[in-house]
């Protein structure tokens, strides 16, 4: 019982007596069709129900679990428990109405209220344990002259609530509770239903049922203090949680129409940095960091889905997700050597007892890139090219420009679209929008002993190109079943698959974008007669659909089988076991076929058909890849309350994980026809065939445990550990011990505090400290191994080669992270203000990194192994503020969060830099060297007077001579203090609900991130790469010596701060507006319980501080597949 202080109460009420219309039943079948289904969800807390004991009539509690039984059966059951006696006439109890009751320690009053809600029965306490049930049916015309309902509204702790509203449903009769929690409401009779609501509390409806005194116990709304938070291998109550764990519900994530679950997480979970760098369908997985990057090794977090390290988090069906929680501090120690970068835990939904509930949704969305850079038109391009050409030639006085004035005029006026086109490649290649479609159907429910959830989802996403095969399709299937085999033994299975098909062009997409954005606008994309021209380097993106495809089919199946056994003879002792088998099969088909373009021949005046780059005959590579993970997990949990105040939970477990990977690929070329893309159709000549394969495996062996102790939920203490064994390391270095401790003090539970600051709902101080590891390096680095490859040719034949891999490091071991956290959580005025502040710091040591900074290349080592050499400090804070209120029928909440993380490299085997300001040590991970740009050289005089690099001309960036040695060289580079991983990320989430309407507005943003964009620097170079409009605008020219942008074909000694941009942005990430059809209306038709239509948007608006020409989240060169803006329409139906 302990540790389960909230209970789910679902009462399914089926009336076969009459339909709501009052129409006489026509047939039995009709009865079944018009089942009245009403669902209630109640939350009770143990504390509340215990404290409510013995405070007057009807204050006792009942624990019951019955399904589909007659009301008389329920009454019998209550009577059988011995606390209550009943008096009633048998015939007044309806015989054909069945009810289900599942309550634990629920107040008797509320149980009876629900029980009689849809009957004409009422009850009365004659004494503390004697209840009279009467049927006050018809007598409709006899109007009770005047009646008053009295009562008292308290919270779960029995404290009176002032200001709660009590309304008689469907009337304007209303009362507000006084300071002592009491109210009195005048009614015509003692019938109808009362609605009681209070800020931050779950609204209730109770049938008056003839009573004149009704007391209410209000329960906290879910997403607050009573939330349950998923932590490693178990769950904890939010209010007694001591670690830094944040959680978001699947419901929040499902609001975003983004096809990628991870991209919806940005800004939702303080401490989680999510940057989506590409929007390509199926390849749009963002980078994730927890509390920034605390290591210069692999900084990616551990992702655990339903207990197992699993991939494809981004591809989960958001409708299946119950919650996503993030372990940021030493609470991650239970995951030991893989958890230094934090842990993301995903829990999927499960079925709950009750009649089958169907949940269907359909979404159709339009998507287009958020921002595509505006590139130069042909005439401007020609001008800047001419300038660059002239500078390269040494600025001769007599110059024949590359593009003549005549040609530039033709680019402008479009008089010759064949030879002098003005091609807008973006417009030619990208469609105005493409679509995305999403269908989900979920069924869940359960009986006394078996609970299930079946879910099916499908999603299609089209690419943004014209003439391109890019397409993404995904099927999510899940079946989760739990069965109570006996009273103490529950077994379950959770099997799911994320079948996905990705189809792309046979050419890498980033190449495609270079071929769009940097394609010369003076060359034709498509001739006026419809023939497709060669494009940049003969790789016109309009030809992508003619070059074959790269199709990848993933068929991962994840399975989890669980058993949970409550040892009957030791109360509180439970055994859990799980076996997980994940198998992922991937089949990739890379089909390249010859393609052709047309080119106008000036001599013959004909359009010549020409073969493009790539293969001359169709060639096919089929690759099969297979991954498996097997994981066994056994846990023993003991939970007990000692002497009523001392609550102890202990858990120990062991876990073994084995993974394997293998692949095999087959290649053939010289296909007789391009009509059949199957490997057997290719040429069988030995020179036309090839195949390859490889395999790896890995394993972990772990022991872990957790001990929780709390005194009256007031003083909290936790210890956890993992003894982690990893095959990655040499035999004597494989095991490591990773402990974590934490403590909490709920000040608000202290009597002195409660009395002096009654407006404080919760005030908790917490602290954690622990040691976690990071083992993310290639395996076997302690061995010298060799790989086949680098063949050579003697005579006329290939001879095989082998070469040594990474140098061995026999001493390789874990990276260690020591983490410390302090946090303060509070909730004031019943949720009107919530606040959570966490301060944290971390020291990484033994960071696995290649010591290439100090090892001379003269040693001639091949790749250097990772060595445990680095030290990085990392620190930051997370702050969450929330506000929840109700104004009349408007209910709303606002939650804001901001997180800060900044790392500092303490040691990294850095070779001494030339100047102290160049040291990476002392700077954050990822800080790069830049030359400092100080405007441009406007005149020859300025150039002559200031030191400049050998290549500098008038119009170039004035690179500052930082060390004042009169020479511009690498010593003038300085270490910039930021990287493209933001130091501050923030989110602002607001939800409004007004009658049937709901609105979610979610903003997300980042600051203190900078990225260097080399493509933004391009202008007028010899490679004819097109430039962004802003680069050419106000550039230095002879005629515009005051221009602020560098000249065409500008020279810089390396990356300068001139093209280093602030990545700060705020984005309207998610906007959702929904309308739920009134229940009254729905209940007339008895088909649907809930119908909601909504419109939502993703990345709708973006305010970038500096990068206004491209999406500011790309964080570097803009020639990548852009992020998507999605506008979605959807409908959700529950029945």
């Amino acid at each position, binding site marked *: 019982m302990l540790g389960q202080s909230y209970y789910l109460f679902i009462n399914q009420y089926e009336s076969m007596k009459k339909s709501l219309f009052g129409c006489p039943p026509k047939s039995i079948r009709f009865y079944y069709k018009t089942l009245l289904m009403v669902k209630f969800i109640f939350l009770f807390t143990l504390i509340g129900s215990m404290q409510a004991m013995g405070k007057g009539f009807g204050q006792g509690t009942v624990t019951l679990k019955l399904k589909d039984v007659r009301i008389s059966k329920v009454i019998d059951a209550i009577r059988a428990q011995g606390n209550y006696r009943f008096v009633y006439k048998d015939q007044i109890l309806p015989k054909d109405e069945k009810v289900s009751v599942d309550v634990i320690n629920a107040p008797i009053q509320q149980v009876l209220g629900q029980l009689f809600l849809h009957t004409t029965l009422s009850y009365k306490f004659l004494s503390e344990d004697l209840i009279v049930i009467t049927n006050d049916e018809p007598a409709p015309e006899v109007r009770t002259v005047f009646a008053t309902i009295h009562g008292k509204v308290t919270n779960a702790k029995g404290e009176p609530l002032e200001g709660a509203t009590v309304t008689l449903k469907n009337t304007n009769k209303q009362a507000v509770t006084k300071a002592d929690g009491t109210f009195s409401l005048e009614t015509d009779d003692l019938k109808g239903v009362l609605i009681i609501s209070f800020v931050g509390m779950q609204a209730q409806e109770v049938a008056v049922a003839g009573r004149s005194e009704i007391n209410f116990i209000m329960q906290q709304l879910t997403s607050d203090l009573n939330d349950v938070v998923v932590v490693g291998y178990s769950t904890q109550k939010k209010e007694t949680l001591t670690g830094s764990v944040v959680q978001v519900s699947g419901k929040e994530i499902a609001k975003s129409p983004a096809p990628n679950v991870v991209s919806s997480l940005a800004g939702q979970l303080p401490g989680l940095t999510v940057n989506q760098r590409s929007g390509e369908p199926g390849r749009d997985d963002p980078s994730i960091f927890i509390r920034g990057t605390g290591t210069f090794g692999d900084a990616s977090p551990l992702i655990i889905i339903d207990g197992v390290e699993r991939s494809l988090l981004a591809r989960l069906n958001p409708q299946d997700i119950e919650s996503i929680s993030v372990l940021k501090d030493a609470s991650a120690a239970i995951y030991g050597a893989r958890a230094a970068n934090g842990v993301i835990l995903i829990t999927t939904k499960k079925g709950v007892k009750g009649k089958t509930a169907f949940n269907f949704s359909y979404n159709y969305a339009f998507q287009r890139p958020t921002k595509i850079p505006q590139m130069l038109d042909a005439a401007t391009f020609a001008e800047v090219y001419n300038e660059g050409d002239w500078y390269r*030639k040494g600025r001769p006085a007599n110059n024949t420009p*590359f593009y003549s004035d005549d040609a530039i005029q033709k680019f402008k006026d479009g008089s010759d679209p064949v030879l002098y086109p003005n091609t807008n490649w973006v417009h030619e290649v990208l469609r105005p929008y493409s679509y995305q479609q999403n269908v989900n159907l979920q069924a869940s429910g359960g009986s006394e002993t078996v609970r299930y959830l079946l879910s099916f989802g499908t999603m299609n996403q089209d690419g943004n190109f014209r003439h391109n095969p890019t397409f993404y399709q995904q099927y999510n299937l899940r079946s989760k079943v739990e069965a109570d085999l006996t009273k103490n033994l529950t077994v379950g299975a959770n099997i799911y698959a994320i079948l996905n098909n990705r189809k792309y062009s046979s050419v890498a997409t980033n190449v495609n974008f270079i071929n769009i954005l940097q394609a010369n606008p003076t060359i034709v994309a498509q001739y006026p007669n419809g023939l497709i021209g*060669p494009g940049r*380097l003969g790789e016109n993106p309009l030809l992508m659909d003619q070059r074959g495809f790269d199709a990848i089919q993933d068929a991962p199946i994840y399975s989890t089988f669980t*058993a949970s056994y409550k040892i009957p003879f030791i109360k509180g002792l439970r055994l859990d076991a799980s076996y997980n088998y994940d198998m992922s099969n991937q089949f990739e088909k890379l089909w390249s076929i010859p393609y052709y373009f047309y080119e106008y*021949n*000036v*001599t013959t005046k004909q359009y010549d058909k020409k*073969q*493009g780059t*790539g293969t*001359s005959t169709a060639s096919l590579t089929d690759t099969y890849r297979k991954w498996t993970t097997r994981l*066994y997990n056994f846990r023993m949990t003991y939970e007990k309350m000692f002497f009523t105040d001392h609550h102890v939970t202990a858990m120990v477990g062991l876990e*073994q994980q084995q993974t394997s990977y293998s692949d095999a690929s087959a290649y053939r070329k010289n296909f007789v026809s391009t009509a059949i893309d199957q490997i057997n159709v290719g040429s069988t000549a030995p*020179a036309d065939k090839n195949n390859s394969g*490889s*395999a*790896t*495996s*890995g*394993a*972990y*062996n772990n022991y872990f445990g957790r001990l929780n102790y709390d005194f009256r939920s007031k003083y909290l203490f936790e210890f956890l550990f993992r003894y982690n064994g990893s*095959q990655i390391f040499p035999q004597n270095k494989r095991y490591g011990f990773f402990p974590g401790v934490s403590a909490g003090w709920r000040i608000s539970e202290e009597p002195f505090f409660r009395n002096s600051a009654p407006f404080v709902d919760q005030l908790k101080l917490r602290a954690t400290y622990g040691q976690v590891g990071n083992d993310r390096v290639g395996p*076997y680095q302690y*061995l010298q*191994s*060799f790989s*086949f490859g680098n063949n*050579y*040719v*003697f*005579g*006329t*034949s*290939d*001879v*095989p080669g*082998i*070469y*040594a891999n990474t140098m*061995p490091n026999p001493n390789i071991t874990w990276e260690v992270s020591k983490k410390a956290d302090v946090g303060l959580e509070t909730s004031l005025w019943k949720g009107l203000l919530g606040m959570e502040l966490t301060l944290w710091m971390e020291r990484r040591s033994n960071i696995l990194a290649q010591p290439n900074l*100090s*090892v*001379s*290349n*003269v*040693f*001639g*080592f*091949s790749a*250097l*192994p990772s060595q445990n050499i680095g030290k990085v400090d990392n620190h930051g804070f997370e702050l969450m503020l929330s506000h929840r209120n109700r104004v009349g029928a408007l209910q709303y909440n606002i939650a804001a969060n901001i997180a800060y993380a900044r790392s500092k490299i303490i040691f990294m085997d850095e*070779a001494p830099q030339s100047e102290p300001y160049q040291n990476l040590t002392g700077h954050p991970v990822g800080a790069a060297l830049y030359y400092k740009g100080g405007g441009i050289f406007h005149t020859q005089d300025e150039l002559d007077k200031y030191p400049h690099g*050998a*290549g500098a001309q008038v119009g170039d960036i004035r690179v500052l001579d930082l060390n004042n040695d009169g020479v511009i*060289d690498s010593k003038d580079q300085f270490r910039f203090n930021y990287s493209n991983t933001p130091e501050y990320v923030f989110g602002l989430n607001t939800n409004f609900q007004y009658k049937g309407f709901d609105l979610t507005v979610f903003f997300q943003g980042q600051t203190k991130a900078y990225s260097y964009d080399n493509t933004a620097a391009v202008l007028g170079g010899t*490679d004819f790469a097109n430039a962004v409009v802003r680069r050419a605008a106000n550039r230095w020219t002879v005629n515009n010596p005051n221009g602020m942008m560098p000249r065409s074909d500008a020279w810089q*000694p*390396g990356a300068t701060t001139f093209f280093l941009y602030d990545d700060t942005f705020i984005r309207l990430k998610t906007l959702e507006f929904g309308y739920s059809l009134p229940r009254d209306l729905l209940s007339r038709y008895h088909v649907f319980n809930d119908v909601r239509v909504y419109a939502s948007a993703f990345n709708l608006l973006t305010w970038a501080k500096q990068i206004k020409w491209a999406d500011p989240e790309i964080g570097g060169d803009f020639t990548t597949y852009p992020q998507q803006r999605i506008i979605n329409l959807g409908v959700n139906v529950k029945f």
Partner: protein
Amino acid sequence: MKKIFAFIILSGMLACKKNVLDISPQDRISEDAVWSDENLIKAYENELYNAIPHGFYIHMYSKYTDESYNSAPCCGADIFARNTYSPDNITNASGGDFWGGYMYYWNQGYQYIRKANVFLEQMASSKLQFTDKPRLVAEAKFLRAFMYFELIERFGGVPLVMKSYQLGDSASFVRSSFDDCISAIGKDLDDAMPDLPARYLSTDVNFGRATQDACMALRSRAYLYAASALFNPTNDVQKWQKAADAAEALLNRGYSLYPDYRKLFILPSGAAEDEYIFCRSFTSTNGHQAPMNNLGRRYGAYGGWWASNGPSQNLVDDYDMTSGEPAFTWSGGTKTVNAASGYDPNHPYWNRDPRFDATIIHDSTTYHGDLIEMWISKDGNSWGYDSYKQSSDNPRGGYILKKFMPEADVPLSWQTIYTNPWPYFRLAEIYLNYAEAKFELGDEVTCREYLNKVRERAGMPDIQASVTGDALRARVYNERRIELAFEEHRFFDIRRWKIASDIENRPIMGMDIVKDLGTGVTTYTPVQLLVKVPYQDKMNLLPVETNEIKRNPKMGQTLGW
């Protein structure tokens, strides 16, 4: 129920393995296996040959000097083409294809030197005996010598590492003198030669492996460099003598100049010829795409983009006339037409050294059955199909590389893999090495004799006995420029001759070819394409990356940098 419980416990016990972490790698071979298996040892040794860069990377060294106009803004190609290389950006050129063709050879070189050292140490300590073992050891020594030569021609004296270090070893490397490096190269070659065959015929399955002749050819080039002005500041005649001797030793080893200069470079690997002494062969699965990186739009190739090796006017001008006379003469930094040569500025491609047409595609060349047209009409409204106006895939300068580019019997497409080998050493170079050394030793007769051997094969008249002294030196230098064009000699030759400060300060030129469509008259106007950053003498040797100097404080940067 108890059964179920028992089942769970039992399955749990079965599931747990004690030695679950003991997994051997499955995708690689352990070191022990390599050194105990004859085939793996051979595979290891085969791989050592990759140490020596060939010239068919996207960026050929020709664009780093005055052989061609580089239009590649990328990476290593640009820093050399514009002379903006420095210790801060030199690593831009440390890779193959896009990354500069290993011009910055430091990292690649020392990695392979270690591989060779490991091999030599393992072979010395291994008890495993097999027939080819001494030969493989000798080949590794030849390769190590070659690697050191690749290093010193770039950097001057470098640290000599003759043993393999393990990770964690500490060592302080200092640069040996250039001469000590030459001695080390000489010693490796001496050690290698007894266990090597004299030569393999070009049709032999082992052609491409080290031979005695390859050792001698490397020695000839190395000693020639050692005797040159840059490395021989006192002009020690003994060094020239060694260079002459080294070349002379190869003169009568059965090699002969292939009769057709044009065809020599497009023979596929394995074809019969007697000129190549040591080369890198290719196959259709392990080949190159040099033609597609160099030809123009007509063939769907990328010649005008980043990969351009479009020959420069500077090179074109240096081809003699068929009269045997240079077309131009230089004096005081200005170039004038040599009237005696028969050069006609209105028909600049007439009567040139046949190697001009064998090396360069120009306006009116017929190549692959196509008439190449580089002209632009006077009004600018029409142009030849191969002109830069048609496509930026056509080189701006008006010339396309022909050397190494196949004739009509080989298809031109991105789909063809080309197998013509890359010549490291061929007899003509040895002749020119010999001629140069002999000239510096004062033996002008022998010098002319060997220059003329090279010219005769090309169909050029002899250099007359009247050409002597500096004039003859100029002809020696020019003969090397013409004969060995695009074979990656020029970059190093102008530096060792110490003439780079002159050559590299000349702008890179191209040719504007304007045709009057009414009269059909074509006019030729040289056009400046690129002005380089002023050349400094320190650029004669490459700097070492800044970080590498920081890692090796005692080693010292290349002089002047």
